[in-house]
């Protein structure tokens, strides 16, 4: 069974082919590393999957159903969540406030509804406990470490019951100890059956958590291999173009 299927997908911006004939299949619970140099087409591909724009040609299937998103909210409704590099959190809100941002739980009677802070805090605490994170629901995000922020962003995707989570450079700006924490969070997403696309420049991260690695260069997929059948050296050669394809 395939969760996400891209068949010969191409996206043009004017005369520029940002991605060109990409075919990728992702299964539930699979962690796929997406690597490539700047300008290789990674972010265009990710934006396409996340629903920012539809492909120029080719088809995209989610759970066997053909989809054509033109707004991120449409992709989110189908279970595709993105954890952005800058994390897209509000520093002035609590952890629980961020987890439930845009998906608030309300209570009240009749037509009068108001925020149910207590339920949201309890639910957020449960999510953090599941992720084995020490993040506390009431804490302000601005006082948090990079790892805790990632936990908040990932808890958001858990709340949405995402099937596919796209993570954009989640370990780029955090300390070594927190990298391990974030990689463990990604592992827990997989354990609950969520597929993850991990965009990273860090070879050790990709090789420690991913099942497969997809390498892009100049808008094309030049390799799509199981981690066990490749090596950091080969991937580096594929990224730079020293090796044409594998």
């Amino acid at each position, binding site marked *: 069974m395939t969760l996400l299927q891209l068949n010969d997908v191409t996206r043009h911006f004017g005369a520029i082919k940002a991605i060109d004939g990409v075919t990728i299949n992702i299964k539930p619970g699979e962690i796929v590393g997406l690597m490539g140099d700047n300008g290789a087409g990674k972010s265009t591909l990710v934006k396409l999957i996340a629903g920012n724009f539809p492909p120029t040609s080719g088809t995209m299937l989610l759970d066997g159903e053909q989809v054509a998103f033109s707004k*991120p*909210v449409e992709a*989110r409704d189908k279970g595709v969540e993105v954890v*952005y590099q*800058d*994390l*897209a*959190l*509000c*520093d*002035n*809100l609590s952890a629980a*406030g961020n987890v439930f*941002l*845009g998906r*608030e739980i*309300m209570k009240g009677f009749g037509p009068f509804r*108001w*925020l149910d*802070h207590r339920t949201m*805090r*309890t639910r957020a*605490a*449960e999510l953090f*406990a*599941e992720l084995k994170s020490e993040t*506390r*629901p*009431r*804490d302000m995000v601005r*006082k948090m470490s990079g790892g805790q922020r990632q936990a908040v962003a990932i808890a958001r995707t*858990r709340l949405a*019951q*995402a*099937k596919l989570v796209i993570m954009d450079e989640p370990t780029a700006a955090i300390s070594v100890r927190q990298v391990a924490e974030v990689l463990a969070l990604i592992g827990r997403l997989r354990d*609950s*059956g*969520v597929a993850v696309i991990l965009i990273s420049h860090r070879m050790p991260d990709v090789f420690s958590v991913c099942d497969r690695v997809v390498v892009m260069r100049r808008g094309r997929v030049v390799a799509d291999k199981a981690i066990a059948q490749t090596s950091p050296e080969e991937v580096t050669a594929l990224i730079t173009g020293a090796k044409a394809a594998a």
Partner: protein
Amino acid sequence: MNTISTQDADAADLTSVMKLSERGWLSHLLRSQEFWIVVAILVICIAVGIMSPQFLSVRNLANILQNFCFIAILAIGMTPVIMTGGIDISVGSTLGLTGVSLGLLYSNGASFEIGLIGVVLIGAFVGLVNGVIIAYLKLAPFIVTLGMMSIVRSQTLVVTNNQVVYDFGPAQDMLIAVGAGSSFGVPNVLWAVLVLGAAMQWALTMTRWGKYVRAVGGNEHAARLTGIPVDAIKVSVYVLMGALTGLTAVFLVGWLGAATNALGQGQELQVIAATVIGGANLLGGFGSAAGAIIGSILIEVIRNALLLAGVNPFWQGTFLGVFILFAVMLERFRTARS
């Protein structure tokens, strides 16, 4: 579907973690801007009370409680504007326009209710124009409302032809009763401050709208990505500001008994000062209605105290300015420590 089972998350463990994160109420109080401004107000009151005992007379305190209300209603409206990271410097002019419009409506025979609704709508319309230009044309709030400040003040002169309105037709008695009268021993305008302040505080902390106002000010980009209607939220805060300005005009004109076209001139700065002294952050994301009210009281106390202490009134601006700087430094100090 993919829900992680929650049964392994030990419930007892969970509550202990949540309790741990609850701050003691005392440390919470000591960290709040509102508390320190209340302390400042009390210190000023005691100091001036010793120097000039008439300051603490019932009559003078009642005077202060009446006078601060006009700034306070406007500051309650300014709070969500500043929380989104915006600002509205056209409020003084809008107060002028809604004030003279109220006078013109009444002098032409409008009923009290029609005049009230009319000026609230005029104020809301000014806010709507501000909000739409800021949200959809993405121009800086300061510049947009600076332009609006000039337009609206000029329109105030245009519609009145520089005449003072003091004939309020059939609505006269009702207008004076609302603006200058009391209910249950408390000035009507003070009731308005209390009710509006409580409603705004509730809206900011307990509704989706309030949370989105906070989120837009905290990280507009993030708010957009999570699907929050950022532009509509921005428009809403300016419309609300304008509507509350119209409401203030009803109380103010009723209190003064006349509508002059200089009404509200320079008042935008006092309103912004009150909001900021009360803990709103001009960069967005933080603020409270309670803080706005307390900030307004401080401004009125300073003004009143200086007059009674016999200080040359030219010094008022200096004292107010020092307090604004003091409040901003206090806020920096608090956030750095916590």
